[in-house]
């Protein structure tokens, strides 16, 4: 962060509107709206999928049809009309890109605007990127270099073609097909996403990252991510998201599964900046996401998320601590402004002995928004000496917003140690006055105070992401004290 100065921040703040609201004028191959078995067959066919996957999709679809949308989340929205969404939209391209040079210039320009650099030789720090626009993965960088270590990092579709055994072995093992309403829908219609496999004992030398972009109108994005860290391996994975500014609500329903085998470690970081809707609550993304990881013996999964976007967010990155001595962590900053609603948190399921989990959640509510933390800490009978520490803080920036905390604790083993701390505070007029009296202007003062409040979480992010997240927090809260 040493290179990032206050002047950079000031510059960023001048462009304070949602700056990813543009649309790329690119021809898309979009199928007609509507959802049916035929549509699912069409998607599967377009992706030249094996029969088992088509059957998987159809099974999910048939179960989904019998399911009810969950109502327990503390959010209000108009249920999406599932027959009014196009389930597949791909930027038109001649055929698969053989090299970066084949990529459509318009697409390259989009990536540049989003701040994504795919040109490997120009990168100073090693971050390999998979770029997913609408329903397909557009490009993945550093594939060869990673391949030398046996690391597989590619789009989900490619993984299905090239590594079907791995995909089949692990897909759906953490999040069952019919886990919940939106996960079932995802299983039926998912189009692309990222796949990553780190072989035994390999420490992935660079950050792996997927950038999700919704571009086409009237579509939804249903992506899948599957990360498998084999025994004794390590990987740090980043995910970023943006979408154009539109008056309609677009649906994003992803499924992310992490598998940490014995002695492995996965660090998964998200900066979610989907279009949040305008000041009056018009438009914005519905972000209904299922994320879960499983930890085998002595392994560790760490989720870090900075959530600033989306009109409605509904998301609980969770850990199943199956193996003895495994560790689950959840670090979250969720910001809501204007009419945004977020219901987010985590589930820590302790099954193994001496398992440990940490939950640090920082909610920031501004405008007329509603921000809820919902978490479950579950200690099973088998989880001897399990430990959990939870801290849930809420910061209120206005008098019309809401902050809510719904912590659930279920403990079936008396040797467990569970700690829970929660605070709610209002951004202090006193703090602001103190900053101003030292010559610091209001916007900068809010930036300082809010970033200080979130520091424990931001410290968990890889450096490039942390800087981005800091800026995002400040921009999201522009002019929101009142």
């Amino acid at each position: 962060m040493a290179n990032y100065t206050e002047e950079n921040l000031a510059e960023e703040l001048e462009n304070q509107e949602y700056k990813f609201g543009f649309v790329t004028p690119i021809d898309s191959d979009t199928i007609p709206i509507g959802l049916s078995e035929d549509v699912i067959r069409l998607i599967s066919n377009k992706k030249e999928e094996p029969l088992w996957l088509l059957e998987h999709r159809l099974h999910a679809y048939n179960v989904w049809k019998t399911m009810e949308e969950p109502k327990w989340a503390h959010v209000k929205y108009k249920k999406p009309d599932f027959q009014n969404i196009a389930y597949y939209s791909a930027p038109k391209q001649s055929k698969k890109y053989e090299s970066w040079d084949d990529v459509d210039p318009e697409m390259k320009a989009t990536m540049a605007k989003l701040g994504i650099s795919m040109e490997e030789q120009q990168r100073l720090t090693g971050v390999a990127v998979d770029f997913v626009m609408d329903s397909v993965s557009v490009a993945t960088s550093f594939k060869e270099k990673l391949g030398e270590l046996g690391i597989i990092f590619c789009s989900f579709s490619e993984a299905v073609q090239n590594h079907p055994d791995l995909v089949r072995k692990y897909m759906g093992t953490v999040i069952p097909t019919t886990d919940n309403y939106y996960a079932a829908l995802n299983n039926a219609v998912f189009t692309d996403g990222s796949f990553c496999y780190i072989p035994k004992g390999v420490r992935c030398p660079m950050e792996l990252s997927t950038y999700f972009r919704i571009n086409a109108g009237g579509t939804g994005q249903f992506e899948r991510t599957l990360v498998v860290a084999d025994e004794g391996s390590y990987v740090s994975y980043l995910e970023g998201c943006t979408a154009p500014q539109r008056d309609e609500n677009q649906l994003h329903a992803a499924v992310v599964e992490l598998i940490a085998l014995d002695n492995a470690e996965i660090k998964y970081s998200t900066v979610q900046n989907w279009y949040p809707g305008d000041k009056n609550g018009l438009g914005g993304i519905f972000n209904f996401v299922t994320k879960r990881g499983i930890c085998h013996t002595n392994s560790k999964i760490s989720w870090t998320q900075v959530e600033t976007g989306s009109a409605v967010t509904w998301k609980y990155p969770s850990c199943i601590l199956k193996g003895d001595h495994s560790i689950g962590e959840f670090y979250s900053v969720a910001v809501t402004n204007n009419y945004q609603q977020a219901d987010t948190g985590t589930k820590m399921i302790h099954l193994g002995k001496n398992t440990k989990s940490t939950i640090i959640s920082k909610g920031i509510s501004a405008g007329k928004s509603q921000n809820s933390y919902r978490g479950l800490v579950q200690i099973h009978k088998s989880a001897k000496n399990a430990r959990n520490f939870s801290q849930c803080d809420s910061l209120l920036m206005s008098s019309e917003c809401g902050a809510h905390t719904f912590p659930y604790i279920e403990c079936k083993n008396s040797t467990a140690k569970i700690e829970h701390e929660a605070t709610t505070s209002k951004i202090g007029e006193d703090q602001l006055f103190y900053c101003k009296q030292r010559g610091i202007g209001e916007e900068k003062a809010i930036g300082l105070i809010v970033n200080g409040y979130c520091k424990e979480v931001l410290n968990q992010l890889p450096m490039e992401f942390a800087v981005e997240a800091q800026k995002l927090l400040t921009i999201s809260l522009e002019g929101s004290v009142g």
Partner: protein
Amino acid sequence: MITIKNLHASIDGKEILRGLNLTVNAGEVHAIMGPNGAGKSTLASVLAGRDAYEITAGEVIFEGTDLLSLSTEDRAREGLFLAFQYPVEIPGVSNVNFLRTAINEIRAYKGEESLSAKDFMSLVREKSALVELDSKLASRSVNEGFSGGEKKRNEIFQMAMLAPKLAILDETDSGLDIDALRIVAKGVNQLKSPENAAIVITHYQRLLDYIVPDFVHVLYKGQIVKTGGKELALELEEKGYDWIKDAHPTV
């Protein structure tokens, strides 16, 4: 430096300052004393620009500028510093980051370049020694977990870093033991110069043993009712405030 004329200010409809007059020249130290509720802290807050107060009459000229027309941050950037009676905590924001932001905002306001990290850090070392502030405190979050004395020393440290033209010390002595008081006073005295000035607000004479004022003013019911030299403070210490109150029953 600063001229306050007929200043009236109220909070929640209640008038606290009722026609206050005061002139402070460069190189001077003024002490403002008075009983509880006289309006001492209100004066500090009004000069610094706290929103809660309504100015109903009067004017304040600071270095030739109409102070009351400036925002809180611009007053600070023009060189007005308030050492808070109750310094606030800002969790997660390090003292150095806070001060560096402040210094660079002030410099930007004056059209000056930002201070380099190297120059800034050497300034931190120099000024923290002045108030015997443990250098570890400089990297800790602003006032978080500081003792009462550390918070006050931190205020003087910030003052030393920002080098204001006019420093207002609002009951800086409250809650300090004698050693902390001595250190704080030493810091203030070393920062004194012919170009700057200080207004020291205090309830007790004690602090004035260490920071010797050129003038002592007694504030009572929102007005300055008596002005004298440093001996006035001793007289107040001896006789209390009752004789002042008796002399001004209708203010």
